[in-house]
């Protein structure tokens, strides 16, 4: 596995290119080779650097040092001083006053590198997911063996110390949840893996399940031992047939190897697992709806409290964790909490998988330390905006995330910073939209999704999504009134405060965010009768026959 200690970003926008950035980039490559640093240092071009003076700009991580303007002759000095001797080449630094403002993000990011670091996806694509021996050869089931030799409380304490937070979107501290379930007194408990991944734009769990199914089985076995459960379910969404197939195969193999079943590794600990298929319902990703669904009922969320930690599956204490959360567990048990805390930010340790989608040059899944910024993701991993069109907004975390305007793209993406900025990290989907997208059109698409997926149990969500969708559609057809915006705000608030579960509570977010950041664009639809992006039809729907 390649691990670089430093990363060099060279600005590569048209202005920088005109000023010789490509030669600078080439020279960096040569110089690194010369000094034999090519294995230790990653070099990457970055398109939109966020400032247009001091170009070409060079940023070196993890120190987050900005050099600029950099010429070919400066390259040797930067490499020799900074990367070889570990001293900052003071005289080449970009003007200090410019470090505030638009690239103030560099300071916030100091100490954490935007380099890819694989923890949960480290085996994906490297092992044969249908062969348990491949998994075992890559340290598989060692964490389980280690955990079985530990006190139960020690395991949840390690997780608490590691700072692992739930990766399903809410960010609840995992170790604490384990401790709650472990603390309940019940002869029967369950552990459940939530693999009902249905957030639009999210496929991290599918990649883990399809590429490394045993890691989830191992994590569930550790969880079951820690909380005192003997039975577990993996609830996989119905559309993920390959993931189900691989999990079932993996479970059979684990049983054959004595890693599931009675007396696992001669420890008196017994545990077995079922794969349970969903049948197409987004709301079943909500943990209580998921439990209802396993029990053979409609996937309608329960009223909480009581929480599943005390009253879960069949009324018994139940631990429910997301796939990505669980995939973090074996490495933490094996390497310790300190190791895990060395990645990411102090308040959000570890890595996070993101799916980069939309109008960028590269789309796909990455795993990076927590705290990377959106600008870095778009430019380093997304390889810049498609056709060079300006970035307009990003939609994070599937439908229930936030719409992030360009002004917030330098906020470090960790749970705490996002909470402060009033946006949600969600499940890690990053839908990048350029200026050819209409924010109203996006809001309609999201609202359509909520309206379609609302389970209908509680009124604010069932009625609110329908009304909001109609109203937004009317605006896109040039039939909106200004007072609709107030009504929409009220609907969004009512859904947020009065809905029973996360679906309804977040269904108003697209309305809230569009009106907060893009109100003028929506008002243009109403006041001027035009769609500034040229997307909406702005004509009344033809009479229905």
């Amino acid at each position, binding site marked *: 596995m390649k691990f670089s200690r430093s990363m060099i970003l060279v600005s590569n926008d048209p202005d920088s290119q005109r000023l010789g950035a490509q030669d600078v980039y080439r020279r960096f490559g040569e110089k690194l080779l010369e000094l034999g640093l090519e294995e230790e240092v990653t070099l990457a071009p970055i398109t939109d650097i966020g400032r247009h003076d001091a170009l070409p700009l060079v940023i070196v991580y993890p120190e987050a040092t900005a050099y600029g303007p950099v010429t070919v002759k400066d390259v040797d000095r930067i490499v020799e001083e900074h990367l070889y001797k570990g001293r900052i080449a003071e005289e080449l630094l970009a003007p200090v006053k410019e470090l505030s403002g638009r690239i103030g993000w560099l300071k916030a990011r100091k100490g954490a590198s935007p380099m890819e670091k694989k923890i949960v996806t480290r085996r994906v694509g490297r092992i044969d997911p249908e062969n348990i021996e491949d998994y075992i050869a890559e340290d598989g089931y060692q964490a389980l063996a280690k955990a079985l030799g530990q006190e139960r409380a020690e395991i949840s304490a390690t997780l608490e110390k590691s700072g692992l937070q739930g990766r399903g979107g809410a960010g609840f501290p995992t170790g604490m949840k384990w401790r709650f379930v472990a603390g309940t007194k019940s002869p029967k408990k369950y552990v459940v893996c939530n693999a009902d*991944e*249905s*957030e*639009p*734009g*999210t*496929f991290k769990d*599918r990649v883990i399940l399809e590429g490394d199914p045993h890691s989830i089985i191992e994590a569930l076995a550790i969880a079951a031992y820690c909380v005192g459960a003997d039975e577990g379910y993996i609830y996989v*969404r*119905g*559309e*993920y*047939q390959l993931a189900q197939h691989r999990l079932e195969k993996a479970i059979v193999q684990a049983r054959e190897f004595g890693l599931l079943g009675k007396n696992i590794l001669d420890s008196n600990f017994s545990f077995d697992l*079922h794969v*349970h*298929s*969903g*049948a*197409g*319902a*987004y709301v079943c990703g909500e943990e209580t709806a998921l439990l209802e*669904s*396993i*029990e*053979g*009922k*409609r*996937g309608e969320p329960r009223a909480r409290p009581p929480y599943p930690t005390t009253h879960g599956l069949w009324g018994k204490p139940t631990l429910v964790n997301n796939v990505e959360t669980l995939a973090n567990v074996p490495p933490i048990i094996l390497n310790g909490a300190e190791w895990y805390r060395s990645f990411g930010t102090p308040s959000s340790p570890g890595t996070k998988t993101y*799916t980069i*989608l*939309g*109008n960028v040059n590269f*789309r*796909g*899944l990455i795993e990076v330390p927590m705290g990377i910024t959106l600008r870095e993701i778009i430019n380093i991993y997304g390889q810049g905006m498609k056709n060079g069109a300006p970035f307009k907004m990003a*939609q994070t975390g*599937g*439908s229930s995330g936030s719409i992030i305007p360009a002004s917030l793209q330098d906020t470090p993406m960790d749970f705490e910073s996002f909470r402060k900025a009033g946006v949600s990290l969600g499940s890690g*989907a990053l*839908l990048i*939209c350029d200026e050819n*997208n209409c924010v109203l*059109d*996006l809001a309609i*698409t*999201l609202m*359509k*999704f909520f309206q*379609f*997926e609302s*389970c209908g149990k509680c009124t604010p969500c069932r009625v609110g999504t329908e009304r909001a969708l109609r109203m937004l559609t009317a605006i896109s057809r040039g039939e909106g009134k200004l007072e609709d915006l107030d009504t929409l705000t009220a609907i969004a608030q009512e859904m947020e405060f009065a809905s029973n579960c996360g679906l309804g509570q977040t269904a108003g977010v697209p309305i809230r965010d569009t009106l907060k950041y893009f109100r003028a664009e929506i008002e243009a639809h109403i006041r001027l009768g035009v769609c500034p992006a040229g*997307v909406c039809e702005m004509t009344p729907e033809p009479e229905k026959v």
Partner: protein
Amino acid sequence: MFNVAETPSQAGQAPSATGQAKDLTKIVEMAVEKHGAQPDAFIPILLEINRDYGYIPAEAIRLARKMLHQPEEHVLVSEGQLYGLASFYHMLHTEKTGRHVVQFCESAPCHVQGGRELWKAVQQTLQLKAGETDPQGRFTLKTVSCLGVCGVGPVMLVDDDMYANVTPEQLADIFAKYE
């Protein structure tokens, strides 16, 4: 997505590989036998029936309830409860579908990556709106929430076949493969 070659049903009855109408009783019996008669098997049983028969007719619900309702085992279930499941979950159909089901991903990522234009083209090519089946019973058009392959969107499923990075120009050729 389902690994069943003979899924599509034909005007009124679901033909099996041998051309004979499938025996609904047998399908239900086999599904119950495979998954057991406990509450956590209800949804897998309905999925199985849907897979084998193409959809879940009222008769299947009646048959399944008879087999699943066992007061002596403390498993209580009504027909309404089973119908409630069949109508709740998107992968279960209570109405007969066309021979081929086109599922178009309508979620935001596909929408932004060209799905907006493609959806209009699909409706136009098939002359159908979401939820409709053509009079010949050839295609049923449905929208579906994110299929989790957004990296290659826009995405469309025709029966079990996934089409990715679809452009409006490809549609005619794609649909021509399905009779």
